[in-house]
C-alpha cells in the first residue's frame, strides 16, 4: 500500500450512509409511486458561472428500476447519456465517452445515486444526504438534500427535489457554483422498457 494510493482513492465519489429516519422522509415515501419503468420529458435550465444567460435543453428520459437511466437530449442538439450499473456512456455528434465499472468501482454507486435523485428514492438518498423538507397541500412535497460526506460535497453543494406521485423538479447546486434546474413532464409509468431501450441499457 503506497502513498499515492491513499491520495487518489479520495478522489472518487464518496458514499456515506447511516441509518437515519425522519418523519418527513416517511411521509414523502408514502406519496411517491415506485414503478418498474418511468418515462417522461425533461426541460433543463443550467446556469454556468461566468455565463450571462442560462443554457436551455430538453428531451426525454427513461428510468428502469435496478437497470439504469437513459437521458436523451433533443434540443439544442442530439446527445445521449446512458448510465447502467456496469457502464456509463455518453454520445453527441462526433464525441463519445465511456466508463466501465471494472475500471471505476464507484460507478455502481453513482448509478444508484442518479437513479435515486430522479426517482425520489428517499431511503437511498438518506444514506448520502442530510434530508430536510416538508409536505405541500394534499399531494406535493419538497426535500432539501445536503451531502454527508466530503467526497460527495466535492460535487454537490445542495440538491432540492419537488414532486407528487413522481419527482417533478430537481435543482442541482454544484460545488463549483454552477446549478441546474430540471423539470419533468408527461410522466408515464410502465411495467417494462421497449426492446430497443433495454438494449441501450445493456440488457
Amino acid at each position, binding site marked *: *500500500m503506497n502513498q499515492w494510493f*491513499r*491520495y487518489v482513492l479520495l478522489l472518487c465519489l464518496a458514499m456515506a450512509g447511516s441509518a437515519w429516519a425522519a418523519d418527513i422522509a416517511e411521509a414523502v415515501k408514502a406519496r411517491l409511486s415506485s414503478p418498474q419503468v418511468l418515462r417522461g420529458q425533461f426541460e433543463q435550465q443550467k446556469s*454556468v458561472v461566468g*455565463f450571462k444567460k442560462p443554457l436551455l435543453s430538453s428531451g426525454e428520459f427513461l428510468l428502469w428500476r435496478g437497470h439504469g437511466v437513459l437521458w436523451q437530449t433533443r434540443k439544442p442538439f442530439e446527445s445521449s447519456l446512458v448510465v447502467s450499473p456496469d457502464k456509463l456512456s455518453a454520445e*453527441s455528434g*462526433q464525441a463519445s465517452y465511456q466508463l466501465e465499472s471494472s*475500471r471505476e468501482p464507484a460507478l455502481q454507486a453513482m448509478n444508484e445515486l442518479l437513479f435515486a435523485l430522479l426517482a425520489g428514492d428517499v431511503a437511498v438518498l438518506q444514506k448520502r444526504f442530510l434530508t430536510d423538507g416538508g409536505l405541500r397541500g394534499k399531494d406535493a412535497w419538497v426535500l432539501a438534500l445536503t451531502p454527508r460526506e466530503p467526497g460527495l460535497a466535492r460535487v454537490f453543494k445542495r440538491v432540492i427535489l419537488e414532486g407528487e406521485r413522481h419527482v417533478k423538479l430537481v435543482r442541482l447546486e454544484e*460545488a463549483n457554483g*454552477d446549478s441546474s434546474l430540471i423539470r419533468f413532464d408527461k410522466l408515464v409509468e410502465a411495467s417494462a422498457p421497449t426492446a430497443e431501450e433495454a438494449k441501450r441499457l445493456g440488457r
Partner: protein
Amino acid sequence: MAAKRLSLWLAAVWAVVVLGTVLHQVQFWRAARLNTDVLALLPENEQAPAVSAATRKLAEQSQRQIVLLVGASDWSQTRRAAQLVQARLATQPALLQPAAVDASRLDAAVAFYQPWRDRLLTQEQLRSLASAPSEQWASTALMRLYQPAAGPQFGDRLADPLGLWQDWWAERAAESPARPRDGLLWLQGKGQQWALLNYQFQGAAFAVTGEAPLAELLQSSRAELAAQGMGEIRLLAAGVPLHAEAAAAQANREMSTIGWGSLLAVLLLVWLTFRSLRPIVLVGLSLLIGCGVALSVTAMLFGQVHLLTLVFGASLVGVAEDYGFHYFAARQGRPANERWQVLRGLLPGMALALLTSVVAYMALGLAPFPGLRQMAVFSVAGLLAAFLTVVCWFPLFDRGALPQTAFARYLANSLTRWPRWQPNRKGWVLALILLVVLGVGLSRLQSRDDLRQLQGSPASLMAEQMEVGRLLGMPSPGQFYLVAGDSPEQLLQREEGLKARLDGLVRDGVLPGYRAVSDWLPSLATQQRAALLTAQAERHALAAIAEQTGEQPARPLQAPQALDPATWLASPAASIIAAQWLGELDGKHYSVLMLRGLSPTMLPALDKAATDLPGVRWVDKTAEISSLLARYRLGMSWLLLAGYVAVFVALAWRFRLAAWRALLPTLLGSLLVLALLGLLGVPLQLFNVLALVLLLGMGVDYGIFLLEHPGDGTAWLAVALAGVSTLLSFGLLAFSATPALQAFGLTMLLGELLIWLLTPCFRPGEALAREQVEAAPVSQLATANNQP
C-alpha cells in the same frame, strides 16, 4: 613444570576471552539485532548496483506496513466488523497505529498540479488529441456543458471544457480498486464487500522470545468477531512485519528443539558412556562456550545475525561435542594424574579433526551468499571455541577418577559383530541390488532451484498475503523495469517509450496495468506536446461553446514553464510515488516502473517488451535468484567432485590399495541419499549439495579411524559416539520449517546414518581377533587418536 605453567597461563587467557564473550552476550540479547529478511541471505547483484538499490528502496517502503481486509457478503456487516476490528487494534497503540487517510493532502496535491493542468495528459488523451478532428472537441465540450452534472470538479467547468484534467485524475485513481465509503475504504472482490484498513507497525525489531504479539492481536480480533456472531466474516492480513514476527517465533521454536534436543542427546550419551557428572558438566560447558563465542563473533563480523544462522547454528552442538568426547574417551580408565599426558597425546589428532571440519565449513562459505557465510563463520568460531575450551580447561577441572564403563566396552565390542562385505556370491548380489537401486533412484532425480527454498513463512500467512495482493492489485516487488538515463529528462522520456510498449500489452489484455513516475511527472518533451495539443483542442472547444451560447468564455492562464523534476520532488505530490524515483547513482538517474496484477504467464512477454529499448532493464528478482541458486548448485557439485578426487589421492597416498575402504562408504552413502531423494520425488537443490560437501568432510573420518586401527573397538567407540551425536543434531535440523534447512538436515541425517552403517562393512578383514579387542583397554583411544 614449564609446560604446566604454560597451560595454567593458557587457561587464564581463555577465561578472559570467555568472560568477554559473556559480557558481549548479555549486551547482545538485551537489544538483539536479528535479521529476519530472507533477501538478506542472498548476494547483492554486483553487476548492477542500481538493481540492488531499487530492491532495497522498494523493501524499505513496505517495512512497517500492515494491510487488513475485512470482508462480508454485505457492506453493512463489513462496516460493523471493521469497526470492531479497529476498536480491538486500538487497544494496542504501542504495536499498531492506523495510517491516516488525510483529505487535505489530496487537496494539496490537486492544488500543486493545478498550474500545469494543460501539460498533464494520459497516454490515451495524448493519442486522441493528436488524431481526432477538431469537430469532435466541439461536440465533446457541448455535450459536457449541457449534461446535468457529472463527477467531481476541480475548479470551474470552463477552465476544463473537455474534462481532460478530471480524466487525468480519474486515471490516477483507477490505479487502485478501493474507494472511500462511510469513512472507510471500500472495495469489491470475490463476491464480497471488503473494508481496507491500513496500519503502521510501531514495535521495535523482533527479538527471539517466541512471542508473537501481532498474530495474537489478529487472533483475538477473529475470536471477538466470532463471539459477536460474525464468525463468517473474513479477516485477511498482509505485511512484512507479520512475516518477520512469524519467522522470529519459528526460529525460537526451532532453536529450542534443535539446540536443546541435541544438547540433551549429547549429554545422555556422555552419561551412558562415562557414568559421571564431571564429563556432563564439562562437555556441556564446552558446547555453551562454543555457541556463545560463535554468536558473538558472527555479530561482531556481520553487525547483525540472521535468524536462520541461529537455527542452523543450533546444529553445531552435535559437531562441537567431538573434542570433549575424544578427551573423555581417552581419559576413561586412566588415573587422574595422567590427564595432561592424555591431552598432549590427543592434541595432534584433535587439531587435525578441527582442521578438516573447518575446511568443510569454509567450503560452504565459498558461495557468495551472505547467509551461508554467516553460517560458516558461526560454525567455525563455535568449533574453535569448543576445541579451545577442551584444550585449555578440561585437564584443569577434571581431577577425579573415571573408570571404564560396561556401556563403553559393549559399544567397542559391537564392531566384531558388524556384518562385513566380502567379494563372494552373496556380496556381489548385494552389490548388484545396490547398483539397481542407485540407477533407478538417480535416474529419477530432478532439480529445482526456487526462491521458495528460503521462505519459511507459514502457508496460511503466505496464502493471505497473496489473496490481499490479488484483491488490491498491488504491484509485485519481485518483477519490475529499471529505467536509466543520463539526465532526469532522458530517464522520463525512456520511461514513456517503455509505457508506449506496455500500453499495447494492456490493450491486448496481457497486462492489467503499471505504475510509473512519468505518470505523475511527464518528461519536459511530453509536457510541451501536451500543452500544445490541449491549447489547440480547448480553443476549438471554447469557440464551439461561444457559437452555441453566444457567451465569450476565455481560457484561463496556465503556468508558462513545464513542471520540472526539482520542483516536483520538493512538493507534497512527489511522496505519492517517491519510492520509485531512485535519483542519481554513479552519474546516472534511475527509476522503477512497477507492474500491477502480474501473473507468471505474463513474464516472457514483459521480458521481451524491453529488449531493444535503451536504458530499460527487465528485472525478475525471482528468476534471478533461481538462476543464481542453480548456478551455485552446479558449481558446488563440481567442487564436491574435485573434493572426492583430492580426498582419494590423499587416502591412496596413506593407505595404498586399501584406500577405497575409507572413501567408498561416504561415496555410497552420498549416492544413496541422492537416489533416495529421487525415489521420494524430492527435488535436488543447492542445499542438498552443500550438505554433501559437509558429509564428505565428516564421513571420511570414520573410514580413516577404522583403517588406522583395524579391528580396534576403541576407535569404533569414538566413531560411534561422534556419529550418533552428529546424526541427532543434523537430523533435528530436518524438522525445520525453512525448506532450505530442512533439505540440508534431511541430507545430513540420511547421509550420516548410511555412512555410519556402511563404514564398518568395509573394514579390512585381516584383524578380527576378538581377544585383541578385549585385551586392549578403551584408553588406547588416546593413541588411536594420535594418528587419525
